[in-house]
């Protein structure tokens, strides 16, 4: 009996010791979280928003995580090295924040099954690779409505980067929003074939205004178009970041990406051991797409936009719900997520031809 008690005590003590040790170890060893950015953190736009998300994560969970980032990583084979370096450095959760990092992320994930990966805006997943993106098009629907109400010339200038589904669905959502309040609206589209070239974006904005556009919107990342809008006395919308400082008299609102809450949630999941490979596509309802306070418009327009946002958040208004007429005249209705994520056609009323 004595020996049994002794044995039990020994086991218990040993168990406690191990538990205690591991407790100390986990307190000392923070979870390392890595981020891979395609642009410089100082772009004031897309990458900057991811960086704000990382900072939010660090300040929210400061004593439990250690975050780091690699910026200016070109999309392509180089990305693989950057991602792998983070994995080798002991990061257990790695966010790769650009579409072009999709295949490199999967390749590295295969080599490091113990590391969790999160890839933004992609569609390929694995057991240790999740994807996440935001429903930017919900914001585009709202600003389309505002533009439809505010334009006097019925002409909107729209500066765009590349014909990928995210951009195309943005144009369509904008047009549908605008048409819902103004059936005569025209959208002039200029492709600058760059995400980020202030000079080109400014040129495009000037040209669009000279062609009669009295509202400028953009799916490129610099603040240049809004600055031009302010200079020429027309209105516009910010992209990715709140650009109100650059054009306080021109910016009505902006479509900003708010990644912080998602980064915190996923990090907590890793710490709790509940992380699973998922596909997240959140929008206004989850505050992943946020529109800063609406300014420079009359109160009734502001009220309309806020009502629309409330409806989108509640799920009673879906930008791609109901009947939609395509540019070629054919009809579709109630698009599902797959159809929105792979959109490669225009809605009726847009007189641009989609580059292929």
């Amino acid at each position, binding site marked *: 009996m004595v020996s049994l008690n002794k044995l039990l005590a020994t086991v218990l003590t040993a168990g406690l010791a191990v538990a205690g040790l591991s407790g100390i170890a986990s307190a000392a060893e923070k979870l390392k979280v890595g981020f891979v950015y395609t*642009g*410089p953190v*100082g*772009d*004031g736009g897309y990458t*900057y928003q991811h960086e704000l998300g990382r900072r939010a994560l660090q300040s929210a969970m400061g004593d439990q995580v250690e975050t780091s980032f690699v910026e200016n990583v070109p999309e392509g084979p180089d990305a693989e090295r950057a991602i792998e370096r983070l994995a080798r450095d002991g990061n257990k959760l790695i966010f790769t924040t650009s579409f072009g990092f999709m295949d490199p992320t999967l390749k590295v994930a295969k080599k490091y099954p113990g590391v969790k990966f999160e890839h933004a805006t992609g569609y390929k997943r694995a057991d240790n690779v999740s994807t996440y993106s935001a429903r930017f098009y919900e914001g585009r629907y709202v600003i389309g409505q505002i533009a439809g109400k505010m334009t006097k010339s019925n002409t909107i*200038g729209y500066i765009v980067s590349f014909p990928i589904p995210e951009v195309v669905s943005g144009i369509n959502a904008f047009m549908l929003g605008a048409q819902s309040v103004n059936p005569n609206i025209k959208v*002039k*589209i*200029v*492709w*600058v*074939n*760059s995400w*980020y*070239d*202030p*000079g*080109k*974006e*400014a*040129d*495009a904005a*000037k*040209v*669009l*205004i*000279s*062609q*009669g*556009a009295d509202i400028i919107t953009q799916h490129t990342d*610099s*603040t*240049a178009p809004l*600055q031009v809008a302010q*200079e020429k006395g027309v209105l516009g919308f910010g992209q990715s*970041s709140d650009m109100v*400082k*650059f054009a306080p008299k021109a910016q009505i609102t902006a479509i900003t990406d708010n990644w912080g809450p998602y980064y915190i949630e996923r990090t907590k999941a890793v710490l709790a051991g509940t992380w699973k490979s998922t596909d997240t596509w959140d929008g206004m309802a989850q505050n992943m797409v946020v529109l800063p306070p609406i300014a420079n418009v009359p109160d009734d327009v502001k009220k309309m936009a806020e009502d629309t946002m409330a409806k989108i958040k509640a799920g009673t208004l879906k930008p791609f719900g109901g009947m939609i007429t395509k540019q070629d005249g054919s009809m579709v209705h109630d698009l599902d997520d797959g159809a929105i994520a792979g959109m490669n056609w225009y809605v009726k009323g847009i*007189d*641009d*031809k989609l*580059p292929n």
Partner: protein
Amino acid sequence: MSPLVQVLLTIITASTPLLIAAIGELVTERSGVLNLGVEGMMVMGAVAGFGAAYETGSPLIGILASIAAGMAMSAIFALMTLKFVSNQVATGLALTLLGLGLSGLIGEPFVGQPGLKLARMSLPSMNNIPFVGQYIGPILFGQDVLVYLSIALTVTVSYVLFRTRTGLIIRAVGDSHNSAHALGVSVIGVRTVCVLFGGACSGLAGGYLSLAYTPQWIENMTAGRGWIALALVVFSSWQPYRLIIGAYLFGAVGVLGYVAQAVGFGIPSQFLSSLPYIVTVLALVIISKRTLSSRGQSPACLGQAFVPDR
């Protein structure tokens, strides 16, 4: 303002930084030095100009700072290639990499800050004259001061290069540094001055971007314009006046591409985006074909290191 005038104004703003950077590089190359670091000097000029204007509240100080930053960068280049005789191509590329990285570091606090815009000239009395006030006025008299400076600079450079003794020396150094040396010309000295002039112009062009074109600082905001300026120097076959044609042709084709899209001609945008480059290449082919028979166009000693042997 009529749409035509607005488009012309856009073209002028788009072309000016190219012209300023290219005229500096032209002088550098005329003296026989190939500095591929234009992009790096430009981006340093952009960040220095923005930063100085932001801190002091004076765009003029910003402009001076951008010139100083470009010169400082080119001084590094001059020291490396002329004093220590390092390879010009490699050093120029390194200068570009250095500029892009360093400017990002220096510029970090300025990201997301609205900048100061260089004032445009305005002659109110001109606007009252019919036709002139509507069309010619805004184009001829309504630009920011750097636009006039870019033209003046081109005229001056052309005059100095081809009508003065100084220009003769610069060209002699670029075409045959050994002969120039034998005649007692300080090859290294002349080249240093020309490299510094090139740096000053590149810096100024960068300052134009961050103070007049798009008054803000963002990393890598030159977006390849330094490389276009380098190409324009070849395009001009080292003739200053042809630079004006080249820079404005390049700017115009780019902007007119946007006009075509906005008006809705249905031309593929990828084609329109590549059009400036296609036009440049075509013009280059035509020019080189025409002048091939007469004489070699590039300075004969371009890119060659010079080590005084006695």
